[in-house]
């Protein structure tokens, strides 16, 4: 990974040279960064340091997984989605229904919810292939609203406006019982978040992730260098749907309750805001954003219980007017090692 190596690979075979350079660049891009380790350590430390804050920590972990999954669609593939909560809510209902009627094992529920959300994502991904930003926006929004309407109308299955309740879950993997303080819940969510982020990290920093960014940058040129844009978008959208569904399942399992609120429009807007606060296109933006957003929202809902929405709106407006790029670049102000790797990562 250094200058020495760069000099040694002098041009015997130009193709091999380019290949090895590409591999090296990819490796450098996907190197584990210092801040990543810090985040995960901090998340584990939080378990011991803040035993009374388990519920809000759980909320953060779930929101983070949701936001990271959206980042794959928005930050990498460049699709503005206003209906990402369709998958979140779908996963939540699947997990709730499974626990209510069939199996109360959380991990199985999680996986089934993820798979089914992925199927939904795959089916709907074909709808977002055509048209401009606006068309995609409308289609995703339409899908989200349709899901919400469906959940509301199919009261015999989903409990309608009252939501789904009265299910309880077995211990995770038969070992760890969900407790009243949400300690198991937090660790469970954190573990899923960690695994999910690692998988998505692997995807995002692979050539596949790079090709997504190419599509985002310029679909036509991407097509010219033989990137199959449609296929890639379908795949990315499906993967994002899987993890969004899992995030929803986590919410259902840790709260033992599913309300139609999981499909509400404001959730899609919230998760966009989360991602914008944290910065798009490097996955950890979702996690940073989730921490900040949840803390701010929690604080606001204490200060102005009824009108916190106003301030969320204000934050959005101010963010856009200041320029979210400038905000997302805060990471470059960190010591040179991270900022350098960020630059290269682009």
């Amino acid at each position, binding site marked *: 990974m250094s200058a020495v190596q760069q000099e040694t690979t002098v041009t015997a075979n130009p193709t091999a040279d380019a290949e090895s350079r590409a591999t090296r660049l990819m490796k450098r891009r996907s190197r584990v960064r210092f801040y990543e380790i810090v985040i995960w350590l901090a998340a584990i430390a939080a378990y011991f340091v803040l035993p009374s804050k388990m519920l809000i920590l759980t909320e953060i972990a779930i929101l983070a997984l949701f936001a990271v999954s959206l980042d794959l669609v928005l930050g990498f593939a460049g699709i503005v989605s206003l209906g990402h909560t369709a998958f979140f809510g779908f996963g939540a209902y699947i997990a709730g229904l499974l626990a209510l009627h069939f199996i109360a094992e959380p991990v199985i529920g999680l996986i089934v919810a993820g798979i089914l959300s992925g199927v939904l994502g795959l089916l709907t991904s074909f709808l977002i292939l055509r048209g401009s930003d606006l068309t995609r926006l409308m289609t995703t929004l339409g899908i989200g609203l349709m899901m919400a309407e469906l959940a509301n109308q199919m009261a015999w299955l989903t409990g309608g406006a009252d939501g789904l309740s009265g299910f309880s879950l077995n211990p995770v993997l038969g070992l760890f019982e969900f407790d009243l303080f949400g300690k198991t819940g937090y660790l469970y969510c954190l573990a899923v978040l960690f695994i999910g982020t690692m998988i998505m990290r692997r995807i995002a920093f692979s050539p596949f992730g790079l090709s997504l960014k190419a599509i985002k940058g310029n679909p036509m040129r991407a097509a010219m260098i033989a990137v199959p844009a449609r296929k890639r978008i379908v795949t990315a959208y499906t993967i994002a749907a899987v993890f969004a569904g899992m995030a929803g399942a986590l919410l259902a399992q840790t709260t033992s309750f599913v309300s139609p609120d999981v499909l509400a429009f404001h959730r899609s807007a919230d998760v966009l805001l989360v991602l914008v606060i944290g910065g798009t296109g490097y996955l950890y933006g979702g996690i940073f954003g989730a921490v900040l957003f949840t803390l701010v929202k929690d604080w606001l809902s204490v200060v102005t219980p009824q009108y916190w929405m*106003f301030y*969320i*709106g204000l934050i959005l*407006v101010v963010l856009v007017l200041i320029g979210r790029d400038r905000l997302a670049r805060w990471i470059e102000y960190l010591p040179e090692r991270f900022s350098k790797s960020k630059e290269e990562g682009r």
Partner: protein
Amino acid sequence: MLTILFDGVAYGMLLFILACGLTVTLGLMNFINLAHGAFAMAGGYVTVIMMNRYGISFYWCLPAAFLVSALIGLVLERTLYQWLYQAPHLDQVLFSIGIVFMAIAATDYFMGGQQQLINLPPELSGRMDVFGVGVGRYRLFTIVVCALLAVALQFILSKTRFGSRLRAAVDDRRVAMGLGINVPLVFALTFAFGSGLAGLGGAMGAEILGLDPNFPLKFMIYFLIVVSVGGTSTVSGPFLAALLLGIADVAGKYYVPAIGPFVIYALMIVMLIVRPNGLFARGGR
């Protein structure tokens, strides 16, 4: 049956008046403004306040609603919106969602969260019988006003100097500026006019659509449907789309109440897949 059709037409006309401002901002100026409903809500609340608190006649409230909404639109355009015309769509979406959230919370704070009711003047309420068809007087009034407005709009856009300036500014901003057209002014006036129309629609729709702080969110999707299905190049496209949507929605709610909204969204998605640029789009944009 005919009554449903009639109600649907009235509903569609209202949607057209509400959404045609958005046609211009979203379609022509290429700005994704999800906050359009907020202006409509402003108009509606102006009417409610004037009528219920000060007892001013309904007929005076309509122009007032137009003016107030237009003024709000103008101020916001000059202070905030104009900076974002060139911004990425994501920024525009986030910004306008922010505006919607603020509008909802602020309205809730000042007016309370309940449904607002207005008392129509007696000559507009009730039904009358026209050739055996029950016709709501207020709906007839709505249709007449909206139809007049639609014709006027078409006239302004296609026949007046301002209309041609607007079309020029939209087609090629730089060339239009080079020709000495004050593009920012044209855009600002258009935006204000569109907001004003939305306010008027909100005022007239308070009776038919209902009015509460969640209005902008509830009807956002309807406006977007009108614009995206109708296309943006003409006035007649959104007009037909709005009529279709109105009739489909009223009929859907009447005949299949359980899946009424579902039909609308499904129709929209199908429409977007088949004709991504709108039903009546001109080619090559």
